[in-house]
């Protein structure tokens, strides 16, 4: 299992246990993390599961693929550390991952 911390814009945080193999978005939805909409259900088609990856974890989560980068055009306040959480697969390596939820998905 991997522990993932979601930090809300107001500073509150939730820690969830995610099973390797699921996506970070799925782990968030399973645990009803506020602010992760995932309107398209994980098809990389809506940009409403946007998260900011904590500086320390950016190497491990990697960079968005081209399709994800294109879809990030539909998100707001996109930064270098922006990812769509439906495109991050949970692995044991990501145990301890810290993510920030944007103020609004749209």
């Amino acid at each position, binding site marked *: 299992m991997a522990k993932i911390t979601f930090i809300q814009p107001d500073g509150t945080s939730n820690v969830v246990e995610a099973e390797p193999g699921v996506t970070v978005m799925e782990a968030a939805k399973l645990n009803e993390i506020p602010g992760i909409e995932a*309107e398209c259900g994980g098809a990389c*088609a809506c940009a*409403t599961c946007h998260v900011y990856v904590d500086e320390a974890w950016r190497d491990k989560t990697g960079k968005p693929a081209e399709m994800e980068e294109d879809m990030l055009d539909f998100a707001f*306040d996109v930064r270098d550390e922006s990812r769509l959480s439906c495109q991050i697969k949970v692995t044991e390596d990501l145990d301890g991952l810290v993510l920030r939820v944007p103020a609004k998905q*749209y």
Partner: protein
Amino acid sequence: MLDKNPQTGGEGSASAIETDVVIVGAGPVGLFAVFELGLLDVKAHVIDILDKVGGQCAELYPEKPIYDIPGLPIVTGQQLTDQLMEQIKPFGANFHLGERIDVLKREGERFRLVTDAGTTFLTTVVVIAAGGGSFTPKRPPLEGIEGFEGKSVFYSVRKIAEFMDKDVLIVGGGDSALDWTLNLQPVARSVTLLHRRDDFRGAPHSVEKMRQLVADGKMKLAIGQVSALHGQDGWLDAVTIKAKDGTEQRLPITAMLPFFGLTMKLGPIADWGLNLEENLIPVDTEKFETSEPGIFAIGDINTYPGKLKLILSGFHEAALMAQKAHQYVYPGKKVLFQYTTSSSNLQKKLGVR
């Protein structure tokens, strides 16, 4: 085959299209409803806000595989849509795309429905197959943006000429943003295209044209994101643009067109008196009829104990709904239950015999 019998409606309203059923939503479930109704000789008009049929299948995942349609081990959203269109072809349903039903009211034994484009229907039965609601342009979460909408912030262009004396800011990097940049550039007083990165996913020839215009000094390209709007009484006079390095710059403009894709919003359905539960329409599980007799809800938009938001559930709901809809359209007429495999009557309707 067509139900278009234009006829003057009541109280000076425009001529209404009379039909048996109006289906709200052209997603897979709305499309299959045409089939189930058609087998029972019930004619339908289908309305969808998108400019294409298929709903989420066509808009969100046309190329993505679906694995849980019975009998089709793998099918993409677009393939399923195409196959359904083929399947319902014999029933000659009329499609009204790019329109949204804004008004629904009972009128005697029937319902009057009016779209945002003014198309009016008089129908015996209404079938709401609206999925997650209507696809509407995403609103950038900028403070105070609502106050500018319709006056100086637009999500679509109705009349190009309205932008003649405007300094226009177009935001986005896809085909909508590029197409409107190219279309408005010759008309508007000035055009600036703003995108978060210097890389565009729109059609390469549009990107090329845009870059040429920039090189010729005929328009501007800015890289960054809008972080604030400035203006009064609905009229923009500038925006703040934040560059990647965090520096901010004020850009004077008088109109903004953001293109950030679509999101699903329930929309006017909320005002139709259907006792919504968390934005879903409660129905029974025998006929999938709402609290209002004659109005049905099928597919993702409805709710009942045990509901699963699956396309296959919506297909089942369409079949049962059609039985009851038939009773409204042909009161007193008995339906003989038949199979398409063996009924020459049904095969005739399908045009295979």
